[in-house]
């Protein structure tokens, strides 16, 4: 007898009939009726009309029936909130049932009824269940707190459930502990500021003990929670690692990956000289390899994570190349990931084997896989110089197969090989040219054209070849058009006599007949260059190109560090930070790896460079197919510009951003707006009030301080450069939020509407957190003041100077660009006070070259006053001491991207001086010009000291220092 019979009743009047059955006196009939209702619900019929009748069946001693009614309630309570109240009584009663199974069932279901009205009635039963004698009820109640918090956070806090939940972490039953940890983590994740999981060595110890006893899922909750903790020093990190490593032997892949996450994160704190570090490295490889025998979906997650691990610590898997060889029956997504990892692991030692495999793959059937395999051969050539020759000959063999897509992929990668090893393999050009006609993909055509243009002097019929492409110029895709334009200009510069006609033809096609602004602009630039100064044109167009680096598709180091903290999660599979795909990105805390802090005084060699990215050298990354536009521009026009193109509707200015650095040498910056500085240094001659009176001033002022120093507004975009729109502004930081205060003035004669704003990528990821709201159209001579909230979760690109911000403002008239410098202190976060122990340890670790000193003149403040003034700019005093009559203040501040700066402030009567140190070692080749820090310190100190009119930023120490920032935990 099966349940399927319940699905069969489909006749008319069914609801009516069910109603009668539900109200039947016979228990058995009632139960049958409820089953029919649930069956209808399962197939998607609306049976909500039966709500009162079903709820009436709730009071029963039949557990199965009760479960079904509860299930019904969960589904329909939301649509019938008023009637859901009818159920409350039974819940309250069931929570007192002598059978723990029923108590737990009631408390579990209660939380799933997401009806605000009834939640408050559930608090009392929940409170009892949290203290229930049966662990099964307690573990269910723990989860219920998280459910209730999701519906009504305030209620849960008011009722003190969070504290009860925290107490459950010390429960005697491991399953209760695990669920409490899971519930707290869940709540903490949606309320990052709550500091719920107040992890300390004692609570960590409890968790580690529970880890040995709870179920596999509980182990995952605990490990994921541990991963959020930052040990105070390397000793603690090591002892946690030692207790976590046994989890690597768990049969459940998810437990293993969560353990790997904790280890990878805490390893960051261990010195590479430690024996334990090496032991740990060795322990990590086997379990990672074993993950490859799991189910394909788990393999996929593992491979995506191994891809990150290999980038972070290539030494772990460097000997394990073979396990990534592709098997015939692997699903395609596994094959592609394996291929990617194979290339990352390729080295001189194993290249022969890798190449043999890749060649094998390149003759498979699956097109995507074959393409990737061919591309991989090219990447090997670039990565392992010794193999380049063999790779090229393999590629030539593949071209001989004449399989269309193989040939095209091969040509695309050969172009990269030419760039990496100029003047080495040009002998193959003839073979490539033979296949010209079969190329039908834009990327391959563009690559071929690039090759012909680049080596025009060696190809006798280069002009004919390029001309053949020209016929269908307007049907080509943009990348081919751009490449053709550049290619022919190169040809002309190399063989001017016979190609004059050709170049004129292409220039006129590009400038006169094209709608594409990029193409037109590039055409015009070449035209002007060629007509005014052919020598300069030659220097620009035929300039030596920067070499492309060997590492490809590397994940940007900050992102990589963040992703390591998310091992096993969706973020690690997408290779994107959670903020990129989780709604309400603000709720997501950026995670970062902990710094290395040693408890011992051992002298350590400066840490060697992180994986794959030697300091001071930003790897050029071979772009994925989609990015080729940017790449083509780079190829010919100088240093990499990789900002996302802003709107390109404006012809004169739209191109500036696109072509970026390459152009300023060409057009002398005429189209650029001179960047106005945020704070203009002014001379100072104001009398200084006495220290005593200032102190009084301060005490009266302290209460009103609500934010840091704000510079007066400066004109950023003069009206004459923006068709009548004048923009001036400044930056402020108030209670944790940064905003850009803008003043827009319409100095034109027409009404302005449709304002929008966009930032280019910048050093600290500043981005508008909301659209630019100009409510009414801006009539002539009208001015509006707008405060634009900013976030720091935008894309990051290092700018020069570091605090440079490029802004595009659009209105109904045009798009305008300007750049401005923002004061650094808007980026000092509120939790920038470093723990004293940590400060001490970190300070010692900072090498001297990261240190800079400057003096602050005319600052008659005492220590306390200085400290509180600095604090209002989020520069915090960690400690204070008095040495030989001088007050020493130890200050810390943290930037929004997690960089810490530590400072020592010595206050001699009348002569304070400041030593600033930033912690080493460096994690990324960034330098933070100290001048900016100095400005911020001075501005904060002096803003309160002097009348507004003479506020000044004086630099007593003008030399610019480079101090290396480091990431510390948040």
């Amino acid at each position: 007898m099966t349940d399927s019979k319940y699905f069969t009743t489909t006749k008319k009047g069914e609801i009516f009939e069910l109603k009668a059955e539900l109200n039947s006196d016979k228990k058995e009939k009632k139960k049958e009726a409820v089953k029919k209702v649930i069956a209808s619900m399962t197939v998607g019929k609306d049976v909500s009309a039966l709500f009162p009748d079903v709820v009436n069946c709730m009071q029963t001693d039949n557990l199965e029936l009760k479960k079904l009614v509860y299930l019904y309630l969960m589904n329909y309570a939301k649509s019938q909130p008023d009637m859901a109240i009818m159920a409350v009584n039974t819940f309250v009663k069931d929570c007192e049932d002598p059978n723990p199974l029923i108590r737990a069932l009631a408390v579990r279901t209660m939380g799933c009824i997401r009806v605000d009205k009834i939640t408050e009635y559930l608090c009392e039963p929940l409170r009892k269940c949290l203290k229930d004698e049966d662990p099964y009820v307690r573990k269910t109640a723990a989860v219920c707190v998280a459910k209730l918090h999701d519906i009504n956070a305030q209620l849960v806090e008011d009722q003190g459930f969070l504290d009860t939940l925290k107490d459950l972490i010390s429960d005697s039953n491991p399953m209760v502990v695990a669920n409490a940890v899971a519930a707290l983590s869940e709540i903490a994740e949606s309320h990052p500021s709550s500091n719920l999981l107040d992890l300390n060595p004692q609570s960590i110890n409890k968790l580690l003990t529970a880890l040995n006893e709870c179920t596999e899922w509980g182990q995952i909750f605990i490990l994921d929670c541990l991963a959020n903790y930052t040990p105070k020093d390397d000793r603690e990190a090591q002892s946690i690692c030692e207790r976590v490593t046994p989890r690597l032997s768990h049969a459940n892949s998810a437990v293993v990956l969560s353990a790997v996450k904790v280890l990878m994160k805490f390893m960051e704190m261990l010195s590479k000289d430690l024996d334990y570090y090496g032991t740990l490295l060795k322990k990590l490889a086997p379990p990672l390899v074993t993950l490859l025998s799991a189910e394909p979906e788990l393999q996929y997650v593992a491979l995506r994570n191994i891809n990150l691990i290999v980038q972070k610590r290539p030494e772990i898997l460097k000997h394990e190349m073979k396990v990534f060889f592709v098997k015939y029956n692997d699903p395609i997504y596994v094959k592609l990931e394996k291929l990617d990892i194979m290339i990352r692991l390729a080295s001189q030692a194993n290249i022969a084997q890798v190449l043999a495999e890749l060649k094998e793959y390149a003759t498979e059937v699956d097109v995507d896989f074959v393409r990737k395999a061919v591309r991989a051969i090219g990447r090997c050539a670039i990565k392992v110089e010794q193999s380049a020759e063999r790779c090229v000959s393999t590629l030539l063999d593949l071209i001989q197969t004449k399989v269309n897509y193989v040939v095209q992929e091969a040509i695309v990668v050969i172009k990269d090989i030419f760039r990496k090893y100029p003047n080495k393999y040009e002998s193959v050009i003839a073979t490539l040219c033979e296949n010209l006609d079969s190329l039908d993909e834009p990327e391959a055509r563009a690559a071929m054209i690039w090759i012909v243009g680049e080596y025009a002097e060696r190809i006798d019929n280069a002009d004919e070849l390029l001309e053949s492409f020209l016929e269908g110029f307007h049907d080509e895709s943009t990348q081919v058009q751009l490449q053709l334009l550049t290619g022919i200009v190169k040809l002309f510069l190399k063989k001017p006599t016979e190609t004059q006609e050709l170049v004129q033809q292409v220039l006129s096609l590009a400038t006169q007949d094209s709608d594409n602004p990029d193409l037109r602009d590039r055409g015009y630039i070449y035209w002007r260059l060629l007509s005014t100064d052919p020598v300069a044109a030659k220097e620009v167009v035929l300039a030596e190109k920067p070499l492309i680096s060997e590492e490809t598709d590397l994940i940007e180091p900050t992102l990589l560090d963040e992703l390591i903290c998310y091992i096993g999660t969706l973020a690690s599979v997408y290779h994107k930070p959670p903020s990129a795909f989780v709604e309400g990105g603000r709720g997501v805390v950026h995670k970062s790896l902990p710094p290395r802090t040693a408890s011992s005084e051992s002298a350590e060699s400066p840490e060697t460079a992180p994986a794959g990215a030697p300091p001071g050298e930003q790897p050029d990354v071979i772009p994925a197919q989609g990015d080729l536009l940017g790449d083509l521009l780079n190829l010919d026009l100088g240093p990499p510009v990789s900002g996302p193109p802003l709107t390109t509707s404006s012809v004169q200015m739209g191109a500036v951003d696109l072509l970026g650095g390459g152009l300023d040498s060409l057009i002398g910056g005429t189209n650029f707006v001179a960047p106005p500085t945020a704070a203009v240094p002014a001379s100072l001659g104001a009398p200084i009030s006495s220290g005593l009176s200032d102190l009084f001033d301060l005490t009266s002022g302290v209460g009103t301080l609500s934010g840091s120093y704000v510079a007066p507004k400066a004109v950023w975009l003069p009206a004459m450069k923006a068709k009548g729109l004048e923009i001036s502004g400044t930056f402020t930081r108030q209670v944790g939020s940064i905003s850009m205060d803008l003043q827009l003035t319409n100095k034109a004669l027409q009404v302005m509407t449709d304002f929008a704003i966009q930032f280019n990528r910048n050093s600290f990821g500043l981005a508008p957190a909301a659209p630019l709201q100009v409510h009414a159209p801006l009539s002539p001579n009208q001015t509006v003041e707008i405060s634009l909230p900013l976030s720091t979760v935008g894309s990051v690109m290092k700018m020069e100077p570091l605090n440079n911000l490029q802004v595009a403002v659009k209105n109904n008239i045009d798009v305008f660009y300007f750049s401005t410098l923002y004061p650094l202190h808007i980026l000092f976060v509120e939790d920038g006070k470093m723990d004293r122990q940590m400060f001490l340890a970190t300070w010692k670790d900072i090498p001297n070259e990261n240190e800079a000193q400057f003096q602050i003149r005319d600052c008659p403040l005492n220590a306390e006053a200085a400290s509180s003034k600095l604090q209002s700019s989020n520069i915090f005093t960690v400690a204070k001491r008095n040495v030989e009559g001088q007050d020493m203040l130890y200050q810390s501040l943290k930037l929004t991207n997690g960089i810490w700066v530590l400072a020592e402030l010595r206050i001699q009567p009348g002569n304070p001086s400041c030593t600033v140190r930033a912690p080493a070692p460096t994690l990324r080749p960034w330098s933070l010009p100290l001048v900016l820090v100095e400005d911020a310190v001075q501005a904060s100190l002096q803003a309160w000291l002097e009348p507004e009119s003479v506020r000044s930023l004086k630099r007593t120490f003008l030399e610019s220092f480079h101090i290396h920032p480091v990431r510390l935990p948040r």
Partner: protein
Amino acid sequence: MSASAVFILDVKGKPLISRNYKGDVAMSKIEHFMPLLVQREEEGALAPLLSYGQVHFLWIKHSNLYLVATTSKNANASLVYSFLYKTIEVFCEYFKELEEESIRDNFVIVYELLDELMDFGFPQTTDSKILQEYITQQSNKLETGKSRVPPTVTNAVSWRSEGIKYKKNEVFIDVIESVNLLVNANGSVLLSEIVGTIKLKVFLSGMPELRLGLNDRVLFELTGLSGGKNKSVELEDVKFHQCVRLSRFDNDRTISFIPPDGDFELMSYRLSTQVKPLIWIESVIEKFSHSRVEIMVKAKGQFKKQSVANSVEISVPVPSDADSPRFKTSVGSAKYVPERNVVIWSIKSFPGGKEYLMRAHFGLPSVEKEEVEGRPPIGVKFEIPYFTVSGIQVRYMKIIEKSGYQALPWVRYITQSGDYQLRTS
């Protein structure tokens, strides 16, 4: 943190049954799943993780069903997939087969199980033996109103109930080693690994404490047993069942545990030591376009003469448009399986050191078909009893129970083929 809802869909993407755990993703979003899957498949970009706007689908396929978890958070993906597989395991234990029909036939139990397996996205009790103690298939059992939470659910020993009794206390130990092999077309071994599992069948009363002793090299080195006559094996990576005390193993390599009742897999291990491929295949596949294919396969048993490989099956790929097969074998029989495009050569018993030959001949149509075919590898299946490639041995199994009964451990060894592939040129 984890799944917001779990769906079981039929092969067309229609939900058969679902459970909403968190309520933060609209249940109607599942409608987008199947179109998305089809689209990705066409693009050749199919992956186990698909996203539609803010909703992420984590899915696995089991026979004709899709199990899909939705989430809008940065969920722990490995946990979700692990959980979905565990769910299948539990359903299979309950219904034998998990398919559309068994879901429909048992929807009440499926709902009950979904309720017990996960709460608010957190996996809870997923041990089917324990679940069966309080979520029973016979609904009438429940009506007595006696059902209680077995204490086991929340015990530290959450996999074994108390009060188990057997007249005869026995443990059966199966040591099974699978050989994974990948050989390229020119005959060089690319990958050769041994994946071993130790499976236990436990019929023991009470709460017995078990200790398993293996000839583990690390253990021998720790205890000074290495050298001399004691042959030991270096286990590269070991994975244990929930019941094994991992920290103890980490400390002194002792495998100690309180076992679940009945069948379970105690541990698995991996070794990548090169061993001589147990059955070596040489093949010549000559394709004469438009006329015929000639296949010659030579199989050689490269293991001890005393041992015998049973149920050997060698599958050799043939073009999909081949016809009129003819075979000649020195031993065993060959069969053409057109639906898989292979010839299967079966040999019931294959002693070590022997060498056998098979020839096959196929006709090819004179009109060549258009699509290109892949080059599937030759696959080999076999079983060699009373033998482990790695040389692993169970040295002892100590069984201690407070009632002090005597229990007998029985050990069996077997080596079999795992993923055993030889590429063809």
